[in-house]
């Protein structure tokens, strides 16, 4: 998201998946993807976690395809109830995108265990939107905002 202490550039990826019924899912791509084989895992993990992912159309397309062709499952539920208290304590005004306020569940690619676990509902996507962002600080109003670097939208055919 930021330069590292060494000054090297870092970026963040955002991902929203859509299923056939039109429901949207925020998908975490900062964490590991245990459903992938070693080579794919390394490829993805390296691309996402470190600063070496080049936001070219080809790279984004390859990443979107990986996500699109694997089922996703719910990963984590964020509790936003205490935001007001945190804002008051920190002296911070946090404005979140409606997508986060609407759904506080973050999804991830299904792991091998998930795939065989009938209790976990697996969601198949029909569309993946990927975005590459940089976090920028605006000193004039002491604010952090996201700045788009690149984006890609992959639909199933």
């Amino acid at each position, binding site marked *: *998201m*930021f*330069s590292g*202490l*060494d*000054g*090297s*550039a870092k970026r*963040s*990826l*955002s991902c929203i998946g859509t299923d056939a019924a039109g429901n949207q899912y*925020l998908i975490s791509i900062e964490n590991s993807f245990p459903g992938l084989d070693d080579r794919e895992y390394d490829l993805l*993990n*390296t691309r996402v*976690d*470190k600063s*070496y992912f080049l936001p070219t159309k080809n790279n984004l397309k390859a990443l979107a395809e990986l996500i699109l062709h694997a089922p996703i499952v719910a990963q984590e539920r*964020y509790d*936003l109830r205490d*935001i007001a*208290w*945190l*804002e008051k*304590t*920190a*002296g*911070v*005004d*946090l*404005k*979140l*995108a*409606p*997508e*986060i306020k609407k759904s506080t569940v*973050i999804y991830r690619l299904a792991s091998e265990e998930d795939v065989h676990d009938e209790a976990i509902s697996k969601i198949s996507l029909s569309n993946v939107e990927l*975005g590459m*962002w940089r*976090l*920028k*600080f605006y*000193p004039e*109003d*002491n*604010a*952090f*905002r*996201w700045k*788009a670097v690149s984006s890609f939208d992959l639909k199933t055919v």
Partner: protein
Amino acid sequence: MLAVKLKQIKDSILQCAPHVLVLKLTVIFLLLYDYAENDFRALSFVITFITVLMLLSDKMLLNRLLWWVVFAVMAVVLIRFMTSIDNHKYVIAYWTLACALSVGASKTEEVLKFNGRCLIGLAFLFAFVWKILAGEYIDGSFFTGTFISDDRFWVFSKSLMGMTADALQASDDLFRYFEIYPNPVSELIFLSASGLRVTALAVSYWTILIEGIIALTFLVPSKHGFFANRDFFLILFLITTYFIAPVSGFALILCIMGLANVERSRRNTRAIYIAAFFLLQLCEFAPDVKDYLLQI
């Protein structure tokens, strides 16, 4: 009594030939530093085994083949994790290569000296250029975010900017919410952060300045005037940086390469590097001390 004892220790260490001392410190460093980590236990064992042999015998220490084997092990790790490995592991591998090349050469001390100076100079030059190009050091935004989101810096955020531990924890929590989904709509505004901004700018410019000076003084082959103080600048950087951001691998390898570059006759400067090498081991404990200070 203690002063006399310390002087005896200093004299006995400095009696050692400079290149042998540098190679021994490198070996101690490699023995303590787990280069391959958990990824290649067998390769870690190879490095440990060879470095123990080198510590036990000066003949082994000056064996070129053993240094090449250690470098080959590092090369395997580097190639396997090329894009994700910590960048100071590249520097450690380059320095090990320099050791391998120096051992058996007719002027081992000179080879180590030249490579140490070039590696430090180039590492700091690249760091300096990166920081200028990224822009986030110039406008202070990097440290503004870091002071809030990186708990290694919280003790300074607390003492220099008067932020409470609760406020820092709350800011960090909000930062994490903010990072869940990058988008053009979300924003995070610090309503009262004037002290934060001034401190972030001061730390940013200090970092750029000291790294630029180290690059300049190590790359320009002059031993006079301003350039004669290169060791002072490097030690100042090591102490002011790595007790705050404890990356001991980077700190110790810089310390060894700095020592390799010091003239044989400058005993006090060599002694300071050696003392720094052992003192910097303590930077591993800095997070615990900072946690304690944060609670006060």
